[in-house]
């Protein structure tokens, strides 16, 4: 939309100038002035181009995958048939074509990787351009730029957090204990960042849930105004049934749909990242939250994970302090 606005403005400015230039061509050369797109607009356009290219490749790869699976199924079917000259010939042909498709798929996967990297680069450039533009932007423009930045900010990869051994080895020497304490300190820093991130996530989803709750309440009040026979119909397959299904709603997808969003890992990704940090039940709650479309569910899962991570952080801190105390004790003359 912003690209279209930029193009429209550029066109509106350029058109009369170009027209005037053409009309005045017989009286000598004139300088034509068209509004050049800003750095932000150019960066946004680059992101859009990269997204489009990636989307096209994804579609192509999906089609090739479907074709490949079909060919494999045919090969499988041929293998189950009684051996014959005709079957062998057909099998060879199918195997050859499936091999070609597999090669094409490999090549496509490489192209997708390149396009994905290109998109990441374009987003990073867009974020840099937005940061530069924010310095001189008006308050209203700054809000829009901030929204853009949030959409383009490349999230830190959600990797599995692996915690170091926190058990105190009574036979370890002070140097080994120092190393262990340093590793624990790094882990504490990672967990502290994770607690802050989960807290932000919970608060964001809480705000969205409250907004949606208010919206739905207003809609339900409208429904009860007209309490006629046809207005209070018992509906088949209504929302309550979907709620009880506890899995009927669509999960939030980071990159699904029209455009992806950064800095919003799904519950499943968080579950993977925290699987070695929190208990199995919390991992399950995080994973299951993806199956709900309700921000309140996402917020509750984030809060539960935050509490679990904070508890683990506290345990680690205590163990580290004990290890450091032991190291000091060993160094005492």
């Amino acid at each position, binding site marked *: 939309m912003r690209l279209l606005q930029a193009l429209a403005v550029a066109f509106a400015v350029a058109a009369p100038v170009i027209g005037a230039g053409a009309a005045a061509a017989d009286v000598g050369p004139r300088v034509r002035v068209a509004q050049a797109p800003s750095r932000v607009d150019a960066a946004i356009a680059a992101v859009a181009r990269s997204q489009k290219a990636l989307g096209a490749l994804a579609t192509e790869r999906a089609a090739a995958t479907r074709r490949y699976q079909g060919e494999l199924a045919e090969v499988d079917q041929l293998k189950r048939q009684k051996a014959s000259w005709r079957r062998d010939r057909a099998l060879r042909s199918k195997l050859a074509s499936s091999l070609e498709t597999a090669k094409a798929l490999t090549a496509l996967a490489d192209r997708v990787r390149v396009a994905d990297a290109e998109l990441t680069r374009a987003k990073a450039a867009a974020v840099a351009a937005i940061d530069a533009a924010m310095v001189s932007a008006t308050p209203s423009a700054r809000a829009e730029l901030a929204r853009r930045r949030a959409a383009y900010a490349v999230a830190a990869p959600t990797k599995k957090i692996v915690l170091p051994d926190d058990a105190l080895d009574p036979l370890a020497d002070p140097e080994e204990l120092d190393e262990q304490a340093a590793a624990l300190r790094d882990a504490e820093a990672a967990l502290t960042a994770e607690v802050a991130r989960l807290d932000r996530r919970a608060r964001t989803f809480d705000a969205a849930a409250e907004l949606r709750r*208010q919206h739905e309440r207003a809609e339900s009040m409208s429904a009860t105004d007209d*309490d006629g026979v*046809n207005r209070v119909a018992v509906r088949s397959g209504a929302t309550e049934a979907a709620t009880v299904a506890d899995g*009927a709603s669509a999960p939030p997808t980071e990159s699904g749909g029209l455009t992806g969003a950064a800095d919003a890992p799904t519950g499943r990704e968080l579950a993977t990242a925290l699987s070695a940090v929190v208990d199995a039940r919390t991992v399950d709650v995080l994973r299951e939250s993806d199956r709900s479309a309700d921000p309140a569910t996402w917020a509750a899962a984030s809060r539960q994970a935050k509490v679990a991570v904070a508890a683990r952080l506290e345990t680690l801190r205590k163990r580290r302090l004990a290890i450091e105390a032991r190291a000091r004790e060993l160094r005492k003359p």
Partner: protein
Amino acid sequence: MIGRAGVVVGVLAAASGAAAAEEWRGRAEGGVEYDSNVQRVEDRQGPQAAPMSRLRAAVDVRGGQPRRARWVLMAAGGARTAMAGGVDTEDATTLALDGAVSRRSSDALALGARATHYEVFPLNAPADAHAFASSGADLSATLTDASAHVATVAVGVRRLAYKPDPDFDWTGATLAVTLEQPLWRGADARAVDGALGYRLEQRDYRGRAYVNACPPGPMPEARCYVPGDRARADLVHVATIKLSYTGQRAASLGYELTVDDSTSFGSSFVRQRLSGSVTTPLPAHVFATLSVVGQLDRYPEPQVVARDIAAQSFDSLDGEARSSAAVRLGRGFGRAWQAELRWSLHASALGDAAGAFRRQLVYAGLTWER
């Protein structure tokens, strides 16, 4: 009647406790409402205004295994009565019961069953035009795929009892299909969701279908509508589409097309309903919602506007072409309380001079929720 609803809620709460419910939620709300047209009559019939009190309480309990069978029971009771003025024929209580169970067969498939009942009990007028009971039961299958599409198919039966006139009672089979799809997910919980729905109801009425007793050609008069030999039967199709956005604001836009194909002369209609609403946060933690509904009805056959001729009712339960606009302000206090202020206007379609209708509601109330 309030006592009856309270007993039901209490029994349900006790039963849920015994059944080791994992979770329960309660909600109570009460307020005062100014209604400019309490009886919901057309302008020519002289609408009467009155202050009304509105109370409602609901409790739902749920339990089961998260990845296997889940169940939900809900009970609600409400009352709306005139606080002053000469209109007491609209005083009524309501009762709603809803029970559902669902069992996941796999990650992709959940099977469910659901039973519902909603009833309006008039307090002072046995033949209140808005008194009815609606019950239904259905079985459903919900499919979810890896691309986050959700499809629900439900089949069941539904029964409606219209208390003032049993001729309008009907029973029939229902089929409902809904498709839900998250269209976009953004940062900061921004999202766009889409939903498509289709519902088919076969309604077999207790009363007989009207037939046109006049020769074809001129516009039929009231005397042309006579009960025929066969019972009335309708086939109702309802198609809906809805888009919802959540971000800095919440918004939704919906369209509903209803086609009632009736065997009763003059009862078929096509209804189009467009609705939109936007909720935005305001300073001081206030949320404002603006809602607009536009409705247009089309009757393929002539409609009778006279009523109670020769003791025959020509009312159509579905014949209200009314649009509305509403503004609601809500603000929470603490974790459980919320204050609400709401104004709404309901009016007949533009150009409908014969059946001009207007109704305004102003409501102020409190809600408690756990």
